[in-house]
C-alpha cells in the first residue's frame, strides 16, 4: 500500500500527520504510567532496603521509632473497597436497568442528568456529608441494629464510634454508584434492538428479555463500569480519611476504625520529618499502584473467562 503512494503525498493528505499526533498522545499515557512507577520506585529506596518484603507483612506504623509496615493500610483499602462494591453494585446495576429498559425516556434522561451531576461532586463534600450524616446515623442506629441482628458474626462486634470501615464503605458506595449507573445505562442502551425483539418474538416477557438477553449481552460493559468504580474506591482519599477513623489496626469487625493507603499518605506526607517516613509513604503509593494493577489484571481475566463461558453455553 505504501508503494502506491509516496510518504510525501500521504503527509500532504494529512493521514500520516494524524497518525503521528494520535500515536504521540497514546504513547504519552503509557509513558506517564512508566515514569510514575519509576519515580515511586526511585524515591522509596530507603524503606525497600530496610524492610524488604517485610513491609507487606508487618503491622507496625511508628514514625517516631522509624518502623513501618503496610499491612493495616492494605487491609483497610481492600475492605472498604469490598464493602463499597457490595453495596453499590446491586444498587447501581438495578438502577441502570430501570433507567435503560423500564423507565420512560424522559424520566430516564432527567435522572441521568442528576446522576452525572452526582459524579461531579468533589469528594471532600462527600466526606463532609459522611461526618455530619452517616457517622451519627451509624453510631446511633445502624451499628446498634446490626449488632443486635447480626452480632453473632465477628463482622459486627465491638464498640461503635461511628468512624469505621463500614462507614467509609458506605460513603464510598454513595460516591461510586453514579459511575456504575451512568456507564451501565449507556451500555444497556447500546444493546441492539434486534436482541430485544427476538426475545420478545419467542414469547419472553419484558423482564425475561431484559434479564436473560439484554443484561448478559451488555455484561462486559457492566463489568467495565464496576472496575471503574473499584479503581475509584481504591484510590479515594479525602472522603475516606474523614470517616474511617485513621487508626492503623486490623480488626475483623467492620464497626472498628481502620486506615487506608491513600488516607495515610494524604494525612502524613506534609509533616513527615524523617526521610525514612517520607519514603515509606511513597512506597505505600507504589503498593497502591501495584494493588490497582493486580486487581485490574484479575478483572480483565474475569471478563475473558466469563464471556467465553457464556459463549460456550450459548453454543451448547
Amino acid at each position: 500500500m505504501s508503494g502506491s503512494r509516496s510518504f510525501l503525498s500521504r503527509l500532504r493528505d494529512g493521514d500520516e500527520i494524524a497518525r503521528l499526533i494520535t500515536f504521540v498522545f497514546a504513547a504519552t499515557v503509557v509513558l506517564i504510567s512508566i515514569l510514575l512507577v519509576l519515580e515511586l520506585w526511585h524515591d522509596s529506596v530507603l524503606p525497600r532496603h530496610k524492610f524488604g518484603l517485610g513491609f507487606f507483612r508487618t503491622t507496625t506504623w511508628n514514625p517516631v521509632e522509624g518502623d513501618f509496615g503496610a499491612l493495616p493500610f492494605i487491609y483497610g483499602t481492600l475492605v472498604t473497597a469490598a464493602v463499597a462494591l457490595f453495596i453499590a453494585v446491586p444498587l447501581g446495576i438495578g438502577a441502570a436497568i430501570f433507567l435503560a429498559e423500564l423507565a420512560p425516556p424522559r424520566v430516564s434522561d432527567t435522572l441521568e442528568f442528576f446522576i452525572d451531576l452526582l459524579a461531579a461532586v468533589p469528594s471532600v463534600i462527600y466526606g463532609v456529608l459522611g461526618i455530619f450524616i452517616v457517622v451519627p446515623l451509624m453510631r446511633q442506629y445502624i451499628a446498634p441494629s446490626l449488632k443486635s441482628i447480626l452480632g453473632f458474626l465477628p463482622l459486627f462486634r465491638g464498640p461503635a464510634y461511628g468512624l469505621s470501615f463500614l462507614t467509609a464503605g458506605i460513603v464510598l458506595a454513595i460516591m461510586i454508584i453514579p459511575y456504575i449507573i451512568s456507564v451501565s445505562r449507556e451500555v444497556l442502551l447500546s444493546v441492539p434492538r434486534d436482541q430485544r425483539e427476538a426475545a420478545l418474538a419467542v414469547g419472553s416477557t419484558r423482564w425475561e428479555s431484559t434479564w436473560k438477553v439484554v443484561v448478559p449481552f451488555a455484561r462486559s460493559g457492566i463489568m467495565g463500569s464496576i472496575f471503574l468504580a473499584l479503581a475509584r474506591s481504591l484510590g479515594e482519599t479525602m472522603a475516606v480519611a474523614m470517616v474511617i477513623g485513621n487508626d492503623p489496626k486490623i480488626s475483623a469487625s467492620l464497626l472498628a476504625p481502620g486506615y487506608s493507603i491513600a488516607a495515610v499518605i494524604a494525612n502524613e506526607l506534609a509533616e513527615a520529618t524523617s526521610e525514612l517516613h517520607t519514603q515509606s509513604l511513597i512506597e505505600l503509593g507504589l503498593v497502591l499502584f501495584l494493588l490497582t494493577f493486580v486487581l485490574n489484571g484479575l478483572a480483565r481475566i474475569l471478563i475473558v473467562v466469563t464471556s467465553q463461558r457464556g459463549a460456550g453455553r450459548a453454543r451448547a
Partner: protein
Amino acid sequence: MKRIAGIIVVLLGAAAGVLWADALSINGAGASFPNPIYTKWFDEYHKKNPNIQINYQSIGSGGGIKQVTEGTVDFGASDGPMNDEQLKAYQDKHGSPILHFPTVLGAVVPTYNIPGVDATLNFTGEALAAIYLGKVTKWNDPLIADANKGVKLPSEDIVVVHRADGSGTSYCFTDYLSKVSEEWKTKVGKGTSPNWPVGLGGKGSEGVTGTVKNTPNSIGYVELIYAEANKIPYGNVKNADGVFLKASLASVTAAASGAVKDMPADFRVSITNAKGKAAYPISTFTWLLIPEKFSDSAKRDAIKGFVTWMLGDGQNYTEALSYARLPKEVVAKEKKALAEIQ
C-alpha cells in the same frame, strides 16, 4: 484610537512600575499553624517597605525544613525545632549552619464531651498520659476524679480522639506527655505523627473537634487558637508548680518567660511543662528557620530587617489573631542572635 492605545500602554507601564519596581521577592515555606499571623506580618511589612515582597507557603513544618535544606526557599518555618540530624544535613549541604528564631507562641488544650458534665474539668499530666496510653478507660477513674472533686463523672468508657494528620499540635502534645510520663516517653515518644496506642484519628483540628462533638464521652486536643475561634470549651491542665490553669495568651507567654533561664543560645527549646505558677504547661514556640550565610546581601538585609520589625512592632499584631506574644527576655536574646546572620 491610537491615542487611547498610547494611554493604555502608558498606564500599564506605570502599573507595572508600581507593582514590580525592583521589588525584592523573598520566598519562605513551612508550618501552617502560624500561617495567619505570618500572612498578616508579610502584608503589613510590604506596606511599610513596598520594595520588599515576602511570599509564604504553608506546606507544613516537615516540608518547610525540607525546602530550606534543599535551598528552594530563602527561609523555612517549623512548629518543632530541627533535630541534630537535620541540622547536620543542612550544614553538610550548605557549609554553614541554619538558625532558629521564635516568632510567636501557641498552646494545646484538652477538649471533651461528657453528657451531663458542664463544669470545666481539671487534668493532671499523669491523667492525660494514662488516658492516651489507654490505661485509664473510664471517666470516673480516681486519676481523673481526684482532681475534680464535686463533679459527678460518669462510669462510661472514654473515647480517645487524636490528630490523624501529621501536625505540630500533636508534636507539642506528645512532647508534654513525654515530660510528665516516663511510660509515654518509652512507649510512644514525641512526634508529628506518633504511633498512638489507642483512639480515633480526626483529620485536622476540624476533624478532632467534629469527632469530639459527635461522640459522647470523648476527649481530644486542639490548638488554643482553634478552640477560641470556634468557641470550643476546654479543660484546665496542672502545671509544673502544681497549679491547675486554663490556657490563655498571658499564661502561654508566661511559659516562655519561665523557660527563658534555661534557654540554649540556638533557641531550640521545648517550653512544655515550664516552671512558674502562671505558666500554662502545653505551650510551644514556632520558629523561623533562617540560614546563617546569605550569598545575596540584599536578601540578607531584607530578612534581618523583617525579623527586627517582627520582634518589635510586629508583636502588636499577635493578640488580635489569638497568638501569644514573645516575652521581653526572648525578644532581647533574639535581637542579639540576629547579628550572627551574615
